[in-house]
């Protein structure tokens, strides 16, 4: 039997090449690994090795030949004791070449996100801070599932840098409430491995600013592996901690990461405002089989809200909440900006403008339906976020409204966002850099042409 040696592709982009030199001649015996020729690719000069044993029967291209297409036969190898005369007698089968057909069919539409179950109605409530609600959510889920554990800096003996994990070490012990070294990149990667290994880690970042050191594992390891493994390897991790500006901590500790993570398929991104949001969404995040980014806010930790007093209270991921009903303008906000939007709505009401305030709760998946239904009623929309406007969440909302409710708009969507500067330290400048109630009021009036 004869074996054809084909012009190889020796780089991801090579389609043709030059045979600069033969290092064997006809009649030479070669074994696997023997260098046969030098080939110049679009990147470099490479050596071509023999794969099979045999005798070089015929060299089909001469030294110095240029523009030899990939997969063109360049030599014939004889196996065993064949003679060169057998070349013609034996029919040489050309190995199957690569297909590069374009797949127009791949443009098949993305499946629509399943509609979440509606939120349950609750009748009995208790007053809790966001901090207590988060702690209760973690504790309840740790009681429910022994594979849930909490790790992070100062979460155990110190009781949490922001006291979210107060009391958890006492109840669950050091095996499940784990102080880590200050090593975000390492423990984020470790949590991904633990999730692959069947556990359900909750990773606390002291703040999301520090998670930038870990972002490779959040995106490349946690978010993409399910897809890259053809569905074999899910990664049920919750990455949580305070996000955005606190107060007077300067540029490196005051950034909103909502739009960074919202960009990534394979992640879910949640941003609670109230204590009920915090509890219901964190419980849902811990139970979710996917990696969830859970963006808290330090200033909200001490604020109190009514939380359903029901052991089974949980909120659906992907469902926004209409916090205030109004007919004149829709204000879409998340996290701490929901409170500011509600205060702005009170001021607007005194001036005869009834604002509908939507608390997004979930940034990815984004509840487009709730936003569109509201805009179809109000015909106006203002987005509010603490992060920068450029490529921010407001851009995404504006684009979706344009795509799905263009004809309903009576004014362009207005964005209220953090100023396009690193966060300043000085008290007066910091106030200027962050969205304020007056900014929301002004934007709402402008889209109402008032």
């Amino acid at each position, binding site marked *: 039997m004869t074996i054809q040696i084909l012009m190889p592709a020796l780089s991801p982009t090579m389609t043709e090449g030059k045979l600069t030199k033969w290092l064997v001649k006809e009649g030479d015996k070669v074994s696997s690994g023997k260098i046969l020729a030098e080939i110049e690719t679009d990147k*470099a000069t490479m050596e071509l090795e023999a794969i099979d044993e045999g005798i070089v029967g015929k060299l089909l291209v001469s030294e110095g030949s240029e523009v030899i297409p990939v*997969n063109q036969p360049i030599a014939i190898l004889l196996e065993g004791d064949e003679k060169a005369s057998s070349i013609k007698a034996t029919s040489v089968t050309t190995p199957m070449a*690569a297909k590069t057909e374009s797949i127009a069919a791949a443009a098949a539409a993305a499946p629509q996100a399943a509609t979440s179950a509606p939120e349950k109605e609750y009748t009995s409530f208790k007053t809790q801070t966001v901090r207590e609600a988060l702690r209760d959510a973690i504790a309840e889920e740790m009681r429910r599932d022994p594979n849930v554990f909490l790790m992070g800096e100062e979460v155990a003996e110190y009781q949490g840098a922001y006291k979210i994990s107060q009391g958890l070490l006492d109840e669950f012990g050091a095996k499940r409430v784990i102080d880590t070294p200050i090593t975000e990149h390492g423990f984020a990667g470790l949590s991904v491995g*633990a999730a692959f290994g069947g*556990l359900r880690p909750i990773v606390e970042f002291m703040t999301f600013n520090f998670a930038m050191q870990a972002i490779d594992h959040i995106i490349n390891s946690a978010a993409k592996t399910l897809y890259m493994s053809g569905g*074999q*390897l899910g990664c049920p991790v919750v990455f949580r901690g305070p996000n955005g500006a606190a107060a007077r901590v300067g540029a490196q500790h005051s950034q909103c990461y909502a739009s960074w993570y919202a960009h990534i398929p394979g992640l879910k991104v949640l941003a609670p405002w109230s204590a009920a949001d915090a509890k219901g969404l964190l419980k849902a995040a811990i139970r979710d089989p996917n990696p969830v980014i859970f963006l808290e806010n330090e200033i909200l930790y001490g604020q109190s809200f009514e939380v359903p007093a029901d052991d089974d209270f949980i909120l659906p991921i992907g469902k926004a909440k209409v916090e205030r009903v109004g007919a004149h303008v829709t204000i879409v906000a998340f996290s701490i900006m929901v409170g500011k939007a509600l205060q702005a709505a009170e001021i607007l009401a005194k001036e005869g403008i009834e604002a509908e305030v939507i608390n997004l709760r979930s940034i990815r998946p984004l509840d487009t339906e709730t936003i569109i239904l509201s805009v179809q009623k109000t015909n106006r929309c203002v987005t509010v976020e603490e992060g920068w406007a450029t490529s921010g969440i407001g851009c995404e909302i504006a684009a979706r409204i344009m795509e799905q409710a263009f004809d309903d708009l009576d004014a362009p969507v207005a964005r209220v966002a953090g100023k396009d500067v690193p966060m300043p330290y000085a008290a007066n400048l910091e106030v200027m850099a962050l969205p304020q109630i007056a900014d929301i009021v002004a934007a709402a009036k402008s889209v109402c042409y008032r």
Partner: protein
Amino acid sequence: MATKRGNTKAATSSVGSKVLIQFYRDMLLIRRFEERAGQLYGMGLIGGFCHLYIGQEAVVVGLQACSKPGDSVITSYRDHGHMLACGMDPKGVMAELTGRAGGYSKGKGGSMHMFSREKGFYGGHGIVGAQVPIGTGLAFAHKYKNDGGLSFAYFGDGAANQGQIYESFNMAGLWKLPVIYVIENNKYGMGTSVQRASASPDLHKRGEPFGLRTMTVDGMSVTAVYEAGRDATEYVRSGEGPVLMEVNTYRYRGHSMSDPAKYRAKEELQKMREQFDPIDRLRAELVEMKAMDEDGFKAIDKEIKDIVTAAAEFSQTSPEPDPAELWTDILVEAA
């Protein structure tokens, strides 16, 4: 904790001929599989990046022979050999290389991204060093669940300069995690030699400050690797903590398919191939021991050739993924 240098020498005494023949077969499978992968790449059937393991076969064959069912394995993008050594089907691996539906990741992962939960193989990672904290997390899960398993985390001499490696060593040492870190020192991180990249080229010593037991091993001798692996697995399974093993090996091919390897002398490669090839060395040992005759070797050659041919055929006949697969496996649907 005192660290101990376990220097191992090539010794056949304690390893029976049956085991050695199995090693020979397993190494030959990887060698032939990789040669065929290189050929399919040349034909344009495999795209993108493709990193071959030729020359390093003794490392993963010797070490995985020490593993038990339930253990976890994780490595970098030079991963085909590890998958075969974990018992994954050569057909599924080759079909993933060609991006076909029959591949381990349905064609959506490629050469660098393959996994088998069934075989305890957790990738296949394309980011240099990222597999090391993940492998540490797999060890964390073994300890948390108290299932007796351990984690093998393989990485190269190039990755050994990544900060996350030392973050991992620190946590593994601190928490005495059941993990064996394996530095496959093939002398070059892409085109940069260890001497040009590492202030201290004795990479195994880098485990000492973290309380890891450290070892250096001749990675061109499968028996040396196997004996070191038995020692290391026994140590880790007894709960003593992690091991860092530096295995000195050599990659015959370029870093990836488009690397002409101009950064090393041809004589260096030739010397390693002719004098230290792990497959040739074991074959010579088997001949000397009279453990196998020429017919025996021929039978193994044929068996391997048939397996690799079947894998190559499957990788070309398996269909491309259905267009609908574009949109699957992005999120797990909640139960």
